[in-house]
């Protein structure tokens, strides 16, 4: 039974990590919009290319933040959470005398 429980934990963590990365959609659309507008601006005023580009990169990097939240959660779910959850499960079962100590 313990193997099944650990398998469910791992599956849940993997699915959760996958769902967390849906957060990547927002920054993708947002940054695409920003770059499109920057291209338009450069097309209209080629002499202001430097200022537009630096502002765009800065804005893109800030817009990326929400996507990075998803990434951090995903990485935590893959590399950190399974160990913690398995440990909690084992200690709970031990406390309830389901497992030999």
């Amino acid at each position, binding site marked *: 039974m313990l193997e099944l429980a650990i398998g469910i934990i791992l599956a849940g963590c993997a699915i959760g990590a996958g769902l967390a990365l849906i957060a990547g959609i927002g920054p993708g659309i947002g940054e695409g919009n920003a770059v499109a507008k920057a291209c338009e601006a450069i097309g209209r005023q080629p002499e202001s290319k430097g200022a537009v580009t630096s502002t765009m990169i800065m804005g893109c990097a800030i817009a990326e*933040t929400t996507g990075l939240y998803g990434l951090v959660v995903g990485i935590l779910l893959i590399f950190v959470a399974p160990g913690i959850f398995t440990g909690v499960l084992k200690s709970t079962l031990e406390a309830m005398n389901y497992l030999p100590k």
Partner: protein
Amino acid sequence: MSKAKKDKMIDILLLCMIILPFVFCMVLKVLTTPGSEGISITGALVYFEIPMPLMPLQITEVQVTSLAVIISIFSLCLYMTHGIAVVPNSKRQLVAEYVVEKVNHLIHDNMGSKYASFAPFVAAIMGISAFSSFSSLLGLFPPTSDMNIVAGWAILVFVIITHYKLKGGIFPYVKGFFEPVPIFAPFNIIGEIATPVSMSFRHYGNVLSGVVIATLINSALGGLSEMILGWLPGFLGDIPFLRVGIPAVLSVYFDIFSGAMQAFIFAMLTMLYVATGFPEEEYEKRQAKKKKKALSAAQ
């Protein structure tokens, strides 16, 4: 000993001080990393623990590397400014002047000339952040990919922001939370706390994603080269040739571009938050009131 010789000696000493901390970190890392097969994405190596009342204080690779970065930047500054003259007579003085001028310009453009004294702080944050991210080029665990370090900086910046907000008096600061209507108070408080959280997560996530992707690509290239070049006789088959050089291409984006970009953004956000959070009107009113009080007390 002649003066020129003495200057040269000091220069060499300072150059050693720039390079040696990193060499020390690399040697320490090579000696202490446990050998392992395949990929392992773990946090920083824990060198030793100091028992503390709440929980043990871990001294990790990250602390050691960031101390090395600090020593290195300090020596770099000493080296750049060693033997400066009114009329520049060396290339490094020109470089140092260029950097200082750029930072001053940045402060002037983004915060106004009132905040000129902020330039060293912003330059320090930018420098330590950029150098920490670049240290992964040497194979070290970059300190910025550990939440603790970046959160420390973010909390420092948060304290400074709050300090500047409180300059207009405590009452306007508290009142600011209940605007535009009192119902917004919880959201405003959450927004206030979100500032350091988002600043640290942004920087940490960017650098960490580079580390994770670099590790995955490294392990994949190791497997690929074993598949393709595994037939080579003897120990030649064990050497992952494909790992040589190819991951460096990714480094250009993830370490150099991303690291420099995040350092710039961290400094930029610091400047913007401080400059926009400062309640100018209230501060001037308060100063005027204080002056009046002092005048009446003098009379």
